[in-house]
């Protein structure tokens, strides 16, 4: 029936976990009693499966960690999850099953807006505390008071998302005056493009090309050539993995040059695309959620990445684990801390804790506002620098994905121009 979390490498994990958390927690007591069951739906097949599978691995690593540390409220933790096939229509059914039939104690969300939003009415009706993973605006309509969202874009994505990109561009000399915007016709990309328009207007930068393309696009050369003929200083793409590759290939072939190119591209973050593009990523300035730079090395980050990579290697999943996995682990950490602070499984108490204080996690200190969004946006913009060939190992090292924004995590300086000289 339900999948139990893997308990392989339990001993190893236990040691590592105790070592990394020993300073913070009291000595581990063995967990006892009925397990606390955490229910969720997750995309293990379909379009979002890549992210769903890697997020699940991270959540399982957390499960092993916490059980090694003596469990949650002294009880062992068990994950109960079902595949939603990346299909939003199957989500409400799964959550009613989890809550009404399986009677799980806690719930977390599936991955992304399209799979989070359909769960909301069920969650609200049951009054469950709900921590979601990379949604955008899923609580805007519901204004549900017991929700938190693990997404660095914050509450005003339509305004703030591209801020970092334009802040970074300020370092260019001479200052940029024109920008081209192109992106996929999807919720996330449309919001990203909207924010680029807002930011450009705010800074008096002229938008010289502004188009969305459909998901089925095969040939990107008409788009890139039209951008080329508009000769913009900045190029802001908002794309998803398949089209990120298509766009960057067309940029290279048609020799599109710009003072700075990149934007809200989803794709370079994931392992398969890093391996594919390799050195072609050099000088790309791209939105991200995490980068293995010394400025973003929080308590437990390195330990998590090491453990995750060991498991992922064995399972042939997303091996670098720099995109969804740290966020998914942080999602579980927030849940853990909220439950611990509430001291019980009372959902109202857990929901209240979500907005009370900040949460130290492996992606930094998180604080949520009343709708569950991050109080401060923390869209990271990285520039790929000094990549040689397609070897994946180099992406594990600092200095390759140099953080240029936000200022508190800045770890290097902008290299102007795209492509890299």
């Amino acid at each position: 029936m339900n999948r139990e979390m893997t308990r392989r490498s339990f001993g190893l994990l236990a040691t590592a976990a105790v070592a990394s958390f020993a300073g913070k927690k009291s000595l581990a007591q063995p967990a006892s009693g009925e397990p606390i069951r955490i229910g969720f739906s997750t995309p293990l097949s379909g379009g979002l499966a890549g992210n769903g599978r890697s997020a699940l691995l991270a959540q399982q690593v957390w499960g092993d960690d916490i059980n090694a540390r003596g469990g949650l409220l002294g009880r062992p933790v068990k994950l109960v999850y079902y595949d939603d096939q990346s299909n939003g229509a199957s989500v409400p059914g799964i959550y009613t099953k989890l809550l009404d039939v399986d009677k799980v104690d806690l719930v977390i969300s599936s991955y992304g807006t399209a799979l989070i939003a359909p769960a909301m009415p069920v969650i609200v009706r049951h009054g469950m505390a709900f921590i979601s993973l990379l949604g955008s605006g899923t609580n805007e309509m519901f204004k549900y008071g017991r929700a938190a969202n693990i997404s660095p874009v914050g509450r005003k994505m339509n305004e703030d998302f591209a801020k970092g990109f334009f802040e970074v561009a300020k370092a260019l000399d001479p200052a940029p005056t024109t920008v081209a915007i192109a992106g996929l016709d999807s919720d996330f990309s449309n919001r990203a493009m909207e924010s680029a328009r807002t930011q450009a207007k705010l800074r008096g930068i002229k938008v010289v090309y502004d188009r969305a393309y459909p998901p089925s696009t095969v040939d990107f050369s008409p788009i890139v050539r039209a951008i080329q003929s508009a000769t913009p200083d900045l190029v802001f793409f908002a794309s998803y993995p398949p089209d990120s590759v298509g766009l960057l290939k067309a940029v290279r072939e048609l020799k599109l040059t710009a003072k700075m190119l990149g934007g809200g591209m989803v794709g370079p973050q994931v392992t398969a695309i890093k391996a594919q593009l390799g050195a072609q990523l050099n000088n790309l300035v791209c939105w991200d959620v995490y980068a293995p730079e010394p400025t973003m090395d929080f308590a437990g980050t390195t330990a998590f990445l090491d453990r995750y990579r060991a498991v992922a290697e064995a399972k042939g999943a997303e091996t670098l684990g720099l995109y969804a996995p740290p966020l998914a682990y942080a999602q579980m950490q927030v849940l853990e801390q909220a439950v611990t602070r509430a001291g019980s499984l009372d959902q109202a108490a857990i929901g209240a804790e979500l907005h009370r204080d900040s949460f130290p996690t492996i992606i930094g200190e998180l604080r949520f506002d009343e709708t569950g969004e991050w109080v401060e946006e923390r869209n990271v913009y990285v520039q790929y620098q000094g990549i040689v060939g397609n070897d994946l190992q180099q992406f594990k090292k600092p200095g390759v994905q140099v953080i240029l924004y936000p200022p508190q995590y800045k770890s290097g300086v902008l290299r102007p121009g795209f492509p890299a000289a």
Partner: protein
Amino acid sequence: MLDPVLIVNAIVSGLLLGCLYAIASMGLAVSFGMLDVVNIAHPAMMVLASFVIAGLCSQSGLDPLLTALLVAPAFGFLGVGLYRVYHHFFEQSGDEAMQGLAFFFGLMILIEVSLVLIYGADQRWVETSYGGHTLSLGPVDLPLRMLLPAMMSLACIGALFVWLRRSFTGRAVAAVAQDRDALRFLAINPIRIKAVAFGISVALAAIAAGCLIVVQPVDAHSGHVFIGRILAIVILAGLGSLPGTLVAALLFGVIENLAATLWGPAWSPAVAFGLLLAVLTVRPQGIFGGAHT
């Protein structure tokens, strides 16, 4: 927006894209158009072949276009076997219309889901030596990533045409498309001929797969992008007209890229499929189809 250089480049890139559509559609033009076997799993077979080619290339370092030629015969034999199954279960009992369609639909799902289960949800790709290079003729750019698959596509389509005209079996295939019973008088088993033709259509899917993996990375569901387009192209051409399929594919590519350049890419699928609906309404036999449909 009416910069002539942009327009010329849109047409040229549209032609290159059209060549990819052509090789992808040609197999379906043979199976659907000539044999009346509506193989909607054709794009899924193409994706399957792409995965196979990507796997072979990453191990051997061979060129994907060359590898495609090597795996094509294997896919051809697979196609022959598949046709035997199809014929046994559907054509013989006269259930081919709906049951056969459902059979290929099921096959499509099986291929896609198996690919996800075996290879995971990630993209597959092949690195080629000519990947980022571009041939420039004055203001016109020809990326080798598009140009070489286009040439491969045209060469294979040319070979197919010659084979259908010149060889005995080829002419038998053409005859079977015209009149199923005519062959019996020549003491040729039409089922054998149709099996060969279906094998060729699946082999063409493998060739198209080689072209596809050079053009773009592929995941298990990449076939969905093509299914509507290649059906539209085959219909637009008039079923069974192979030269018509080539022209329709080129036309489709050019319209898509022109629409993207002139009105923005958001509308290009609607323009292309709107054209199909219009053709179906005004000239149901397709642009190049004869009256016999």
